[in-house]
């Protein structure tokens, strides 16, 4: 450090020795030349910096659009990454099954559901048997789901799917009712259901019969698991649909009364209950008119339980008493005094 100082001091002295002037006095021309040279050099530096930042910005912009469009991929359909539902977990489940893990069979409703339009509204009907493979999982389940006060939906297929899909769309409809301040329309619930099911390409196994009465009149629709819908005067779904359809085809007429429609629907469901193994137990009906909906749970019970599960208890005195002995049982009561130092809470 000291040597550097000494060097600096020597240089400064040497400079001063040369007189006050540091440079030789040049001509005007030379002075002008040097003046403009430094100016141009400074400008050059400024221009260079400016160009540098512009270039950097441009390259970054390109990189940014690349970053943003990373996911889009190429325009060719064949080169695009697969979109939509992710099936990785399905592959994992298949592998697990191959390893020997037994998967639970989803509960299927294996059902008969149907609906018919009559003069003032619609009647929806359903059986009440829920199966898990070959066993009956629920002998008296509810297949007619609430969508809106004026719209009900029967569901066939996987019980979990039908219940969750109808529940989800029901809450969406309620939010929509709060937003609009109006009664829900059947076509609204139809569009919500069909777009949801179409998104999942048939993997949500829910076949529905949707019926209701709104300001435009009575409506009845079927919704298939793949997302297609049909508007019909009468329709059936589920494993017992052919049985119920046979009854409807022979008994339907236009502008029926409420009683005729209810009787026809009961017959149709009974046809499914007795002729289809996937359907059974009781008949549920739901009658929807402009005045409101009547949910008639277990209106018809053609399969009553005729045996008792528990045998009747024996009458008192049917067993002879040979000997009796009274044993004193010590008292199990003990007195416990609780002493606390805590004072009551002052709430004033």
């Amino acid at each position: 450090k000291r040597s550097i100082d000494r060097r600096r001091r020597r240089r400064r002295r040497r400079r001063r020795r040369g007189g006050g002037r540091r440079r030789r006095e040049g001509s005007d021309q030379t002075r002008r030349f040097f003046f403009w040279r430094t100016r141009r050099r400074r400008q050059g530096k400024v221009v260079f910096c400016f160009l540098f930042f512009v270039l950097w910005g441009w390259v970054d912009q390109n990189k940014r659009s690349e970053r943003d469009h990373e996911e889009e991929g190429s325009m060719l359909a064949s080169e695009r990454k697969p979109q939509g539902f992710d099936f990785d977990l399905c592959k994992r489940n298949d592998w697990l099954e191959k390893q020997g893990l037994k998967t639970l069979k989803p509960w299927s409703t294996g059902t008969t559901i149907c609906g018919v339009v009559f003069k003032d509204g619609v009647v929806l009907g359903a059986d009440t048997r829920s199966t898990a493979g070959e066993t009956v999982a629920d002998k008296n389940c509810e297949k007619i789901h609430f969508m809106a006060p004026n719209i009900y939906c029967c569901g066939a297929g996987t019980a979990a799917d039908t219940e969750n899909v109808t529940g989800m769309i029901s809450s969406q409809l309620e939010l929509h009712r709060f937003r609009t301040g109006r009664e829900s329309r059947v076509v609204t619930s139809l569009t919500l259901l069909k777009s949801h099911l179409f998104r999942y390409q048939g993997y949500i196994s829910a076949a529905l019969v949707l019926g209701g009465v709104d300001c435009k009149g009575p409506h009845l629709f079927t919704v298939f698991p793949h997302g297609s819908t049909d508007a019909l005067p009468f329709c059936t779904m589920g494993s017992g649909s052919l049985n119920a359809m046979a009854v409807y085809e022979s008994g339907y007429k236009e502008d029926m009364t409420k009683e005729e429609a209810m009787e026809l629907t009961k017959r149709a469901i009974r046809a499914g209950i007795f002729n289809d193994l996937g359907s059974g137990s009781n008949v549920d009906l739901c009658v929807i008119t402009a005045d409101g909906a009547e949910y008639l749970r277990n209106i018809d019970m053609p399969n009553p339980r005729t045996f008792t599960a528990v045998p009747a208890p024996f009458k008192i005195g049917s067993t002879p008493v040979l000997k009796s002995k009274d044993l004193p049982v010590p008292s199990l009561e003990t007195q416990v005094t609780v002493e606390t130092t805590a004072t009551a809470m002052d709430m004033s």
Partner: protein
Amino acid sequence: MEAPTKMKEVLTGTTIIACTYDGGVILGADSRTSSGNYVANKVADKITKVCDKVYLCRSGSAAHTQAVAGYANLYLNQHAIELGDKGCSVKAAANIVKEIAYGNKAWMNAGMIIAGWDKKEKGKVFVVPLGGTLMDVPFAVGGSGSIYINAFVDRNWKPNMTKEECKSFVRKAVSLAISRDGSSGGVIRTVTVNEHEQVKEFVTGNEVPVYQDEIQSKGPPQVEFVSV
């Protein structure tokens, strides 16, 4: 008893036809949608309106075509807001359907015929078959039943027919296809679109013409000669 199997996808397995006549177009279709071997709907309406004076005939998967028709309706309604009184052109409608069909060609099973009337080009028919091509044609047939009537339609269609001639031609073609194709049946629906009107009609099931072997008669079979 086996556990209930996954429901077969609902297909329209159809006969659809559209052809131009002097002053407009007539679209025709049968009304059967099948789910495997079961007829899911015997009175289906396969001719859907996507825009004022433009209709779409659907064939293939019912779910796919209903979704496409829904999207086309959405985009065309948005487009119509900007057009105002001018009205939507059939070409624009057909192009929108083609974009959807071509862009999703790997996952879709939909063959469609778009037909209608617009002020500039009058009656027009466009067809968008399975791969998503777009073709501008004077007449078109589609669906599973179309193969049985290709020759009939090629031979019998004439340019500048009258409305009545065209309607009976369309009905005859669909009835011939119904008589040969198992996936087609029900009623024959027709839609007539021209400058002044858009009329939806249908021929009830018992009035659909039947041909030779279907007719029960005591004497020798009554053979009807289809004019060539």
